[in-house]
C-alpha cells in the first residue's frame, strides 16, 4: 500500500467515524442472502423437460422485442445445419470472403459446421491460442481472425428466459471478440441451460467455484436510440444475433 492509498483509507475511516488508528478489519463480507435463499434458487432450476419447453416459449416471446432470433434444433448436427443456412443467406458487412470465427467448445465442435459450410466455400476458424507458439503473436493472429470474420459463434453458459440474456464466460478458447467484432453473433446452447430469470442466473454464477476475470451478459444485437430516440440495430457490436437452442 503506498502513501496516497494509506491516506485515502485513513480519510475513509475518519469519514465513517471509525477510530483511525485501527486498521480495516478483515472479516468476511456481508451475506446478503436470506438463509436458504440460494439453495431455493438453485432448486428452482431442477425442471422437467415440459417446464423447460415452457421457458423456451417465454424466451421466444421476449426475444421478439429484442430483435434476438431464436431457432430450435432437435440435434447438435441439426443446429450446425441451421447455422450453415444462416451463414449462406447472410452477406458480409465489410466486404471480403466469408469467414466464421468460433469458440473452442466441445458443444460447438459437435455442430460439424465446417462440413456443413464446405459446399458454400465458407471457412470456419477456431479462436484458440496454439500453446506451442508465442501468446502475444497468437493474440494478434486471432485478433485479425475476429476482424476478418463476418460471423462469430459462441456457446452460452446460461440463458435467462424472461429477459433473453445469455451469460458467456471468457477464457482460453473463448475469446471476447467472437461475440463482439463480427457482424453476426450466433450463440448455441442446450435446453437444460435455460433458467427462468436473472435471479436464477445469478444463483448459478454464485454457485460456481470461481468466476473468470471477464464475462458478459448478452441479450440481442447491439442497438442505439441516440438519434431522436429512433431504435437502430447494429451500433458497434453485431447487427444481428441468433440463439440456437438444442432440444434433444
Amino acid at each position, binding site marked *: 500500500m503506498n502513501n496516497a492509498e494509506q491516506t485515502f483509507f485513513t480519510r475513509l475511516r*475518519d*469519514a465513517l467515524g471509525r477510530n483511525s488508528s485501527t486498521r480495516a478489519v478483515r472479516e468476511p463480507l456481508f451475506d446478503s442472502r436470506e438463509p436458504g435463499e440460494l439453495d431455493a434458487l438453485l432448486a428452482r432450476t431442477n425442471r422437467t423437460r415440459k417446464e423447460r419447453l415452457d421457458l423456451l416459449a417465454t424466451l421466444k416471446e421476449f426475444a421478439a422485442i429484442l430483435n434476438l432470433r431464436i431457432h430450435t434444433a432437435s440435434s447438435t448436427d441439426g443446429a450446425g445445419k441451421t447455422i450453415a443456412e444462416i451463414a449462406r443467406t447472410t452477406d458480409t458487412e465489410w466486404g471480403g470472403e466469408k469467414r466464421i470465427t468460433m469458440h473452442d467448445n466441445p458443444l460447438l465442435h459437435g455442430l460439424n459446421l465446417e462440413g456443413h459450410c464446405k459446399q458454400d466455400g465458407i471457412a470456419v476458424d477456431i479462436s484458440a491460442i496454439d500453446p506451442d507458439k508465442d501468446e502475444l503473436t497468437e493474440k494478434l493472429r486471432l485478433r485479425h481472425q475476429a476482424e476478418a470474420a463476418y460471423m462469430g459463434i459462441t456457446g452460452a453458459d446460461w440463458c435467462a428466459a424472461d429477459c433473453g440474456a445469455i451469460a458467456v464466460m471468457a477464457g482460453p478458447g473463448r475469446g471476447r471478440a467472437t461475440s463482439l467484432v463480427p457482424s453476426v453473433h450466433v450463440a448455441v446452447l442446450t435446453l437444460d441451460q435455460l433458467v427462468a430469470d436473472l435471479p436464477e442466473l445469478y444463483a448459478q454464477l454464485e454457485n460456481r467455484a470461481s468466476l473468470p476475470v471477464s464475462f458478459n451478459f448478452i441479450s440481442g444485437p447491439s442497438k442505439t436510440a441516440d438519434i431522436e430516440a429512433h431504435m437502430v440495430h447494429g451500433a458497434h457490436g453485431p447487427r444481428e444475433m441468433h440463439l440456437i437452442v438444442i432440444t434433444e
Partner: protein
Amino acid sequence: MHEQSDKSYRELANEALGDERLHSAIRMIQDRIGKGTRHLWKTEISQELRDKAKKARMRTLDNLDKVLTTLTEKIRANGGHVYFAKTAEDARNYCLKVAQKNEVKRVVKGKSMTSAEIGVDHLLEAHDIEVVETDLGEFIIQLAHDAPSHIIAPCIHMDKQQIGRLFEKELGIPYSEDPPTLTKAARKALREKLLSADMGISGCNLACAETGHISLVSNEGNIRMSTTMPKVHVALMGMERVIATLAEHDMLLRLLTRGAAAQKISTYVSFLGGPRQPGEPDGPEEFHLVIIDNGRMKMLADPRFREVLSCIRCGSCLNICPVYGRIGGHAYNAPYPGPIGAVVMPLFNGVNKHADLCRGESLCGACKDICPVNNDLPRMLSELRHMLAYGDEQWDVAPVDKGEALAFKGWYAAMSSRTAYNLLVKTGRLAQAPFVSDGMLKKGIGPLGKWTADRDFPPIARQTFGERWKTVHAPRLKGDSNE
C-alpha cells in the same frame, strides 16, 4: 468537449424555455422512459425490493473501507492495478501517466460521467493523444463541440437534420436524415477508431467486491469494444460505485436498467476484473481501476448527505423531473444535470457556486418517488437551501442574502401579530395601486421584481377574506339566525 457555458443558469434556462424542439425531445424521453419506469415500479418491481436495495447500498457505504479493500485485493490478485485518487487532478494525471507509459496515441472512451467530472479529455489532448467518444450520442456531441444534455441520451437536444448536416460536414457522407443511415456511417467511422486505439477509458456502473469485478452496461457495444480491443483499459470509478455481493448486483442491475431505460436488461452487461489471463485469446494486457474521491469523502462523512452516494446514476430522476423537462440538461451547465445534479454539483464544487441549482428545482418529490434507491433528493435540496440561507461552516457556505433573511424575519413578526398584519395589508394595498394592471401585479419593484420578471403576482385583494367576512357574511349569518 463537454464545453461548459459562461452563461448563467437564468440565461440558459430562459433560452431553453423558448426552445420548442428541446421540449418535444425531452417530452418524448419523459413519456417513454420516465412513465415506463414508473409503470414498472408499479407492476413488476415491488417497493420492498427497492427498500432492500437502498438498505444494501447504505450498508455498503457504512462499510466502504472493508468493501473497497476486498475489491482492491481481488483485482490485484488477478493482475489488475488499483489507484486511489484524492482529487480530479490526481485521477486525470494517473490516466495520462498510464497512457504515456504505454505510448498511447489514441484513446477510445465508453460513455462515462466520471470522466467528464475529472476532465480527463483536455489533459490527454494537450499531450497529443487523440480522444474519441464512442457512444453514438457522445460522438455526435464531440463532433459538434457541444455538451451532453442527458445522462443516458446525451444528444437528445439535437434533431436528425442537425445530425445529418454534421455528418455531412465532419464524416464526408452525403446528407441524410435517416437514423439507420446515420448510425451506419458512425458505426463505420468508429469501428476504425475502436480497432486501432491503444487505450480504452470507461466508467464503472457497479463494482462487485465479493467477486472482484467492475461491471458496465451498454446497448451499443462500444463499451465492450473499448474495454476489450485496446491493449490498455483504464476504468474510472467514483468510490461509492461498489456493492458488496453478487446477490446485491442482481438486485441493483435490475433496478438500474429499468430506471435508465425502462429495459429489463441492457444488451450488454460486462464484468471485468483484471487484464487478459494466460491462454485467453483477447482482452487488455493492462487493467487499471481508478477509485476517485474528489469530494465524495465529505458527502460520506456528513449524515445529511451520505444518502446521495447510494445513487446508481440511472438518470430516471431526469426522466420525471418537471423542471428538467422545461429547461433541459444544458441549463444545469454541469457534468451531472437534473435533480441528482442539483444535489451533487453543489456538494462537489461549492454550494454558493451552484446556488441556482439548489433553488431551481421545484421540490415536487417526483424524483424521490421514481428513484430506484429512494434517494430523498428533495430533502437534500432543502438542506442545501437551508445552508444558503443561514450559512454552513462544514461546507464553507456563506449566507446568500442577509437582506432576504432579515425580510423573512420581519415577515414572520408581521404574520404573528393581527394588528401588524392588518396594517401591512392596508399600506400594501395603497402602495401597489400604481403597479396593478389587468388585475395582476405585472411589474414589481425590489425583490418582487425578480418574481414578476417571469410571472405575474396576484395583488392584495380589494377586500381580504377577513374584511369580507365582517361586512358581507357575518351580517348575513346574523340575519339567518334572526329568521
